[in-house]
């Protein structure tokens, strides 16, 4: 390993690249050792780019495993991670659903696998465009989950993810999700960091002494995932997984802090990132690509004299309950925009339902307006986003929620149908 580390070099440079390529560069910078590759739109170019890197020799020592399905992709990651290697794969929508069984395996075995998700709408009807329902529907697999708003954030977040996941107190797998096509296939300038700086931020993985319980080694035979009777420690293992999620919040904050110190880019406190919330009366909680465009909308509406702000939700799991409570206390009306669905939940939107749960019983919190929009990649324009903020402003002024709610939630930008 130490020899290989000298072999690949990368100086800091800015490249105009697609979000998927940004994810591939992050995996390269993180020196992942095993990649399980299976194509699915819109993720495919992540593993394509990685195959180019491996083939051209710019990722020496990395094993690129071509598998026959997403289920096997995750199985290969589980196997590889058990040998104490840094692993990476990427998928989308239906592919992620097919992985589901092995996702639970990764959490239960406490393996720090990082998976990039170019999110797409679940079928049917067949859809390949941005919609976070795919990754959010894996909520209870125990994977950590965060969203990216920019091409640079994809690169940065993957590096930060390894930092958090590989922490000995955490040891959990994680999704890094970004909107299919909206980020995966558009190109923007991305800074690829100097390899030495990344190596300092992300040191090599520990050996069998550091991770004794997951380090598979023929010299030290051990059993994984064996049967546990109801009277055994099953509940206690589950409790520890939840505990790791709770502990991860602090680790995520530290990873973001350290990242800013090393590379100069700020991502709020790691869990959430606020924009012009200091004096805001009305706020919008939003995640993924829509968050970047919402910043522009906030500026436009502020030019008209309204005190609006927004919060980018970076992490969905662990859910930043403390942040959400503070935000809900600081404004009078809080919109929560979901580009995802949670059918039959209190609001129909996964994040807005969680926000309502988080502030339950807390006094003097904002009125929450759950919103859903942009499903299946439907374009959300800047104009629509300024409109959404105006709806919140009006709600603050009149005290009434808009009249055209659908089961308590504003489905914004939907087509008019008879």
């Amino acid at each position, binding site marked *: 390993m130490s020899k290989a580390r000298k072999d690949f070099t990368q100086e800091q440079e800015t490249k*105009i690249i697609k979000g998927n390529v940004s994810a591939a560069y992050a995996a390269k910078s993180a020196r992942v050792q095993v990649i399980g590759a299976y194509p699915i739109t819109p993720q495919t170019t992540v593993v394509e780019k990685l195959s180019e890197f491996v083939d051209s020799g710019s990722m020496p020592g990395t094993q690129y495993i071509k598998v026959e399905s997403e289920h096997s992709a995750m199985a290969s990651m589980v196997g590889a991670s058990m040998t104490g290697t840094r692993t990476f794969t990427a998928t989308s929508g239906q592919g992620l659903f097919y992985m589901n069984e092995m996702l639970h395996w990764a959490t239960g075995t406490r393996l720090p696998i990082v998976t990039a998700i170019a999110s797409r709408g679940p079928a049917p009807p067949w859809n390949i465009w941005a919609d976070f329902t795919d990754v959010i529907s894996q909520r209870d697999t125990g994977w950590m989950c965060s969203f990216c708003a920019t091409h640079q954030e994809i690169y940065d977040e993957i590096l930060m993810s390894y930092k958090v996941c590989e922490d000995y107190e955490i040891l959990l797998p994680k999704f890094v999700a970004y909107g299919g096509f909206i*980020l995966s296939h558009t*190109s923007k*300038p991305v800074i690829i960091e100097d390899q030495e700086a990344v190596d300092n931020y992300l040191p090599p993985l520990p050996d069998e002494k550091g991770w004794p319980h997951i380090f598979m080694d023929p010299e030290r035979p051990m059993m994984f995932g064996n049967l546990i009777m109801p009277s055994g420690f099953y509940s206690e293992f589950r409790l520890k997984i939840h505990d790791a999620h709770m502990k991860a919040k602090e680790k995520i904050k530290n990873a973001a802090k350290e990242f800013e110190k090393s590379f100069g880019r700020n991502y709020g406190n790691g869990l959430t990132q606020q924009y012009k919330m200091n004096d805001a009366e009305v706020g919008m909680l939003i995640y993924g690509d829509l968050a970047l*465009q919402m910043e522009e909308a906030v500026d436009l509406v502020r*030019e008209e004299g309204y005190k609006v702000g927004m919060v980018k939700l970076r992490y969905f799991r662990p859910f930043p309950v403390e942040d959400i409570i503070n935000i809900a206390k600081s404004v009078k009306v809080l919109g929560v925009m979901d580009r995802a669905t949670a059918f039959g939940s209190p609001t129909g939107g996964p994040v807005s339902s969680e926000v309502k749960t988080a502030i339950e019983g807390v006094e003097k919190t904002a009125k929450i307006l759950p919103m859903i929009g942009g499903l299946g990649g439907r374009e959300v324009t800047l104009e629509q986003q300024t409109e959404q903020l105006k709806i919140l402003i009006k709600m603050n002024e009149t005290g009434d929620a808009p009249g055209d709610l659908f089961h308590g939630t504003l489905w914004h930008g939907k087509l008019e149908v008879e």
Partner: protein
Amino acid sequence: MFFIGWLVIIKNQKGKSWIKLVESKEIIEIFFHGRGGQTAITASQLLAEMAYEKGFIDTIAIPIIGAERRGAPIMAFTKISEKKQIRTYDSVKEPDYMIIFDTSLLDIPRIKDTIKEGVIIIANSPIPIDTTDFPDNVKIYIVDATGICIKREFMHSSGPILNIPMLGAFGKVTGYYDLEIMEKVLKKEFGEKKVEKNMIVATDAYESVKEV
């Protein structure tokens, strides 16, 4: 000319509108129309790279991906900005420039409708294009990109590689980048070997694009 006050009408859900004065149009938006296989999507990406190389601080290339096939209409956008960070991912509705790889696309009403007042069009055509029903103040440049590609044998498996001459023409018309910048970016993108031929067609287009 892009930094003067600009009126933007924002329509709300129920059709009520309000008018807002946006300080300036700091982000230049380019709309590409092409057909599958004509390399328009690569053009949107290369344009972003060339603008960045020239010193624009932010760029974004946005392809519209559906179920593409050779010959099907393709749309792509590039936004470039000299000073301001670009924070939008939405499609371009009021482009400053349109690059049209195939003028037969203008026979399709929904594509012709994307031509807006005041836009500057650069079209791949050996002859002036039919401007019947065009909105006011549309400025048109033509370049015979197909002719240049055929003459210089700059082809791929299903036809001429139009993006390089179209981008050469765009550089000349706008002055956003020159042939030197193009060469630098193409070298980075396609390697030393292929640059020479690329630059021959780019130069041909750079020199022959004309206003009509």
